[in-house]
């Protein structure tokens, strides 16, 4: 290989690269130059022969490696038998049971709300239904969501209006104001002259 020019070494490498990536398939049309090169090039033939030899040696040496303990397989089997099958349990969130109960509760409530509504007509009833029935059924379906919202909305409004912190502050302010009025009335001297003083001065 040392006797080869750098150009031919480069073309060998490129050809081997093509063959490695795309194989020596005849389907490759324009890439057949790589196959032809590898077939005719002495250096490439030598390379592939060395490759075969290397693989055979590596395979043989892999077999010569120290084997696992004779009883390794049996030990693994023993540990498999001692561990319960399908032991892996899906990891669930800590309060999964609480969340599931909540979800079931919400689902039940929604079911009750929906069941409480007037049922829309089902398909087999539609055949014998009058236009009036169909109209009523459509109205019932349309208003179901509106009714539900109407039942929820007042409590939502009340929730936004009911602010315990604000109420507490108001009551504190109210108490302070009452105390100030009490103090003002009983202990602060009156700045206006009383009616008795003015009559005395006149006399």
């Amino acid at each position: 290989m040392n006797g080869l020019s750098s150009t031919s070494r480069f073309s060998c490498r490129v050809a081997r690269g093509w063959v490695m990536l795309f194989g020596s398939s005849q389907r490759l049309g324009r890439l057949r130059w790589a196959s032809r090169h590898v077939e005719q090039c002495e250096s490439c033939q030598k390379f592939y022969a060395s490759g075969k030899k290397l693989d055979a040696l590596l395979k043989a040496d892999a077999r010569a490696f120290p084997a696992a303990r004779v009883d390794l397989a049996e030990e693994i089997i023993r540990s498999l038998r001692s561990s319960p099958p399908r032991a892996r349990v899906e990891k669930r969130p800590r309060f999964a049971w609480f969340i599931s109960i909540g979800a079931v509760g919400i689902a039940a409530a929604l079911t009750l709300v929906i069941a409480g509504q007037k049922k829309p007509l089902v398909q087999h009833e539609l055949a014998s239904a009058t236009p009036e029935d169909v109209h009523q059924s459509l109205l019932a379906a349309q208003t179901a969501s509106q009714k539900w919202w109407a039942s929820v909305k007042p409590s939502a409004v009340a929730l936004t209006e009911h602010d315990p912190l604000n109420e507490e502050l108001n009551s504190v302010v109210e108490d302070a104001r009452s105390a100030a009025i009490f103090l003002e009335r009983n202990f602060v001297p009156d700045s206006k002259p009383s009616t008795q003083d003015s009559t005395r001065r006149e006399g």
Partner: protein
Amino acid sequence: MSPQSDDSLLAATNPADPAENGLARAAKSGDPRAFEDLVRLHSSRVYNYIYQMTRHRQDAEDLAQQTFLKAFQALARLDPDRPFIAWLLTIARRTALNHFRGAKSWVEFPIDAVSREVSPDRDTERQDAIENLWDRARAALSPRDFEVLWLRISEDLEMKDIAQATGLTETHVKVIIHRARQQLINSMPL
């Protein structure tokens, strides 16, 4: 001589063995005996693969055991039409990487340190390390290239199975094998 791709250099590839596929199917459907047969068939291959990467007998045995336990628990995800060993080695690799968490690639112990500190049969391990082509390959190649070459040559895995086991693309695997082989041919008198 007709031109050969690196893939075809290996005389025998390892297509999924029908008998093994049958065992895999039976194991997947809940037959514990079938899985035990698969353990007997493949325990030494799994051990060898992990031992090649860790160079530590005890670790390799422990990790091989963990691999089969994990495989047993994950049987529902097994594709019985693919070679069972490829699936097993994928699990083995992940198990070992988790074991050596933080290491980007396999942790390789210097053979002397291993022998002195842990293994009682120091002489045997020293003997194992001498005059084996794979040890020369280990010295010449990067750990990743070595691993890919081992899977291809020693385990006869298909390119796509190696790609899946190592998380590389199939083309990348082909390039690594080609380059590794070229490097070894140039560095070893054959």
